[in-house]
């Protein structure tokens, strides 16, 4: 019984801790929007539609289904031919030098804007774990 109570409290404590350390989605979306405007909107445009054949769309984009690849292309850059929503693109996106937290924010914003939605919350730790 004593063991159980201790365990129970540790469990509750951990939940509290994770609630406090994890950045809530709402805050992440706001920060992500700012990053998006500064670093992404210039090419992908504020409405996320991009420019056909030159800058691939992010709004309702099938490329985003692979979240790891999405994070990786923002973290390390992306180069070479890709197909997005049936359209071919062959260009370079260089790494923008964002830190892991900023990347998690902007990915959350992209995955939850312009008709995109996801249940997964991207955290700094997830971004940190993505390798080239």
């Amino acid at each position, binding site marked *: 019984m004593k063991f159980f109570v201790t365990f129970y409290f540790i469990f509750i404590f951990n939940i509290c801790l994770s609630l406090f350390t994890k950045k809530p989605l709402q805050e992440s979306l706001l920060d992500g929007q700012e990053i998006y405007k500064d670093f992404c909107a210039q090419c992908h445009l504020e409405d996320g539609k991009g420019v056909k054949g030159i800058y691939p769309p992010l709004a309702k984009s099938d490329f985003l289904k692979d979240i790891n690849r999405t994070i990786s292309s923002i973290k390390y850059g992306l180069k070479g031919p890709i197909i997005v929503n049936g359209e071919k693109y062959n260009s*370079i996106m*260089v*790494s923008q*030098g964002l*830190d892991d937290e900023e990347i998690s924010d902007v990915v959350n914003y992209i995955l939850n804007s312009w008709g995109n939605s996801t249940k997964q919350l991207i955290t700094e730790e997830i971004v940190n774990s993505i390798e080239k």
Partner: protein
Amino acid sequence: MKNTFLTIATLTASILSCSAQENLPKVQTPDKKNYSYKIIVDSLDIPWGMSFINENDLLVTEKSGILYRIRNGNKKRVKGLPPVYVRGQGGLLDIAVSPHYEETKEIFFTMSSEIDTFNKISLVSDSVSDENFFNSELIKKGIELIREEYPFVFNETLKDFIETFKDELNNGFDPIEKFQLFLDVNYYPDIKDQNVLNQISELSNRIKKIEISNDINLYEEEKKLKSKLRSIQKKYSFLPQNGKRKAKGGHTALYRATLVDLELKDLKMIYKGDFNTKKGQHWGSRIVFDDDNYLYFTIGDRGNRDVNPQDISRDGGKVYRLNLDGSIPNDNPFFGKGNVREAIYSYGHRNPQGMVFNKKTKRIWTSEHGPKGGDEINIIKPGKNYGWPIITYGINYSGTIITNKTSMNGMEQPLYYWVPSIAPSGMAFSTSNVYPKWKNSLFVGSLKFEYLERLEIKKEKVIKREKVLESIGRVRNVKEGPDGYLYVAVEGNGILKIIPN
């Protein structure tokens, strides 16, 4: 009612037609091309700057932070660059071989840097040479240790530190710990809350007292206090956090170095923009020299248009002028004018990414990224205000209005503005006889439309615009080589040489 409707309709139509209209002269595509091109350097992503040492010896910067030296077509990496802060539009930017290169082997380059000169945190590559500094071996050793731990420390900071802690250092205290304490107390740029500042100084004082008392019984308490101090430090400070520095943003810096084969030596930062910001936009930058060996370079508005470009006490949105040794010429327009950046030559710029010295008129010309419909060519005159963002021909890319003023007393007009915006990159004049029909034409790269534009200019008016090298990719830079040929840097491609047939 009908009238109102008509008025609105006409107004809308006229606004729409205005915004869609191309600013004259319209850009032409020549039917006959009597030139071709050859790729002389390949495999480059974003070749921002290039500078010729001679016809067969070329320096090229890659925005991601790589410097190449290409000798007789052989591309090799040059080592010894300071840490480049690659963020947004920033990175390793322009490069320029000194007019005295033959004697001095000096080169200049601009890049984005997170070194914080305002808070006196900087990279030290040259050692502290002041003799009085090293009046003891212990201090000397201590400084070496600090340098290892904190490569981003400014000489001035070290001097202050030694002044404050010389007794402790001479008594054999751990220099790193003392240095941390020194930074804790002295440098908290972001903390506005007086309570937090008081807390820091109280903690620091208590730690210092315990250390001086050397009482073993207080050891645990000292540890506790230190960890408390670290946790505040972690929240606010720029210091290494678990070995990783968390950037506080950056600004454009100008460096000078000597080039020895494939290595940069005697690295010296000769100018650094303040105040660092995490914004990704508008770092500039180009470097050119005039006939009198003054150096000019540009910094963009750093994404803070409402504050930087019109304020000459701040950096950003400016063209600067320096002597080759990094000192400020005493005939600079704002020299000795009090609270100003004396290196400023002109202000009110948005983001000049093209600059050239016009050998005929002896003036500096720039090309600048404006807002939508507001890209400009400017002739730079000392002390003048080029108006951004008070006047502009452009509107925000989102479609909203910045200002409805396109001119104002005391502000300069551009020589030309592009509608639609071409996103102008580097610029060059053709002064040689290699392309007889192009002599004295101005060439500007278009990032957006992926062509090289040739402009004929008569009496400071653009009379003809023409596309040269169409659909080749985003044109990042153009230069006239020492052999008189034009060299064009294209993103995702390399350096192209234009060859007349």
